[in-house]
């Protein structure tokens, strides 16, 4: 493989991916109609993740690409995870403080801001 001639992915693979993506969509939609408790969330996110990976790896050719591309693709996601995780280090412990120590006087309260809109 050279840059000038990147691998030509057979149309069959594209077709297959397309079918799988649509099936996953159907599955995702179907699962959302059922009540599976917390599993709903996991399933939805997992399916979205699989769909994303299929598109990245095959349609966007990451699978056939150089390590440098892998690094660039990974970077975006790693940074996103850093941002979300470290922010959650605040949000998840704001409530836990009171709960864990059973003391309400610790700085944080479990209080997200209230809403002032009058209810009907």
């Amino acid at each position, binding site marked *: 493989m050279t840059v000038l001639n990147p691998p030509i992915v057979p149309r069959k693979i594209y077709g297959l991916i397309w079918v799988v993506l649509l099936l996953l969509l159907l599955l995702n939609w179907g699962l959302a109609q059922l009540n599976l408790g917390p599993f709903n969330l996991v399933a939805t996110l997992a399916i979205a993740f699989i769909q994303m990976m299929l598109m990245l790896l095959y349609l966007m050719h990451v699978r056939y690409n150089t390590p440098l591309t892998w690094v660039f693709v990974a970077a975006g996601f790693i940074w996103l995870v850093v941002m979300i995780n470290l922010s959650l280090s605040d949000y998840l412990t704001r409530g836990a403080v009171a709960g864990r120590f059973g003391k*309400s006087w610790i700085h944080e*309260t479990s*209080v997200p801001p209230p809403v002032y809109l*009058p209810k009907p």
Partner: protein
Amino acid sequence: MTFPILPEQASKIATQTDNLCWGLVSISAAVCLIVFVPMIYFLFKYRNGHPADRSPSNLPQTRIEIAWTILPLLIFMCFYVWGAKAYFNIERPPPGAMEINVIGKQWMWKVQHPEGNREIDELHVPVGRIVKLTMTSQDVIHDFFLPAFRTKQDVVPGRYTTEWFQADKIGTYHLFCSEYCGTSHSHMEGRVIVLSQADYQAWLTEGQPGTTLAESGERLFRELGCSGCHLGQSVIRAPPLQGLFGKPVPLNDGTVVIADEGYIRDSILLPAKQITGGYTNDMPSFAGRVSEDELLELIAYIKTLGSQSP
């Protein structure tokens, strides 16, 4: 013009923070010595035109690099731990605090004492007592900064934050708003007046309005109709509020939260957010109908509800 060098130390926390500061000053001074003295020496010794041995030195480079990576790291970790420990002292009031409410608004501080006394831009406290402030803001973010006690905390609209201090010395100290809050941010100042126990009692009785905070809260509790549901024989089943404050409350969704000020605040303004286990979402929201002052009064009242029936 006066020429102050160090801020007044009026609490133990102040000493603690100053010690940390001096620790950092010393290490910084040491670092400056270690860096700048050789630097200046090299500048003289090796300046162009000055004869010196300039043959490439064969220092153990990698070992030096590792040394000056690890060493600062160790020093940093010491200060991290020191700072964090002291931080927890600042953030956690010791038990037995007297509680005062503070409401920030553009551009003044409103203070509510449990005894019912209210003041603006001034905070009278007795010396030696631990004072815990429960603070909220009516509009934007403010910050309650007490330099002499080395403590500050943002006052955020929509929630309660707390701050505590214990004055060691009688005197008058600065209070600043140190979060930018608009036009008169720099005039949102005030004084903390630390009185002796006796003077404080005298001050309290002199300005006593006749009703305590909890009594005002009780009046509101009736006026707003809370009592209709939360007292005895009502049609709607509502949880009794006796002994609620500070206790763990099991919620409908299985979690347990501590009934602190924030929880009660949410129960009043945003009842749908946390529904008490075994009850339904029947309580109306009082958002827009109670002011921040009134909320704090209601909370003060609910706090006083021991196990006895109101």
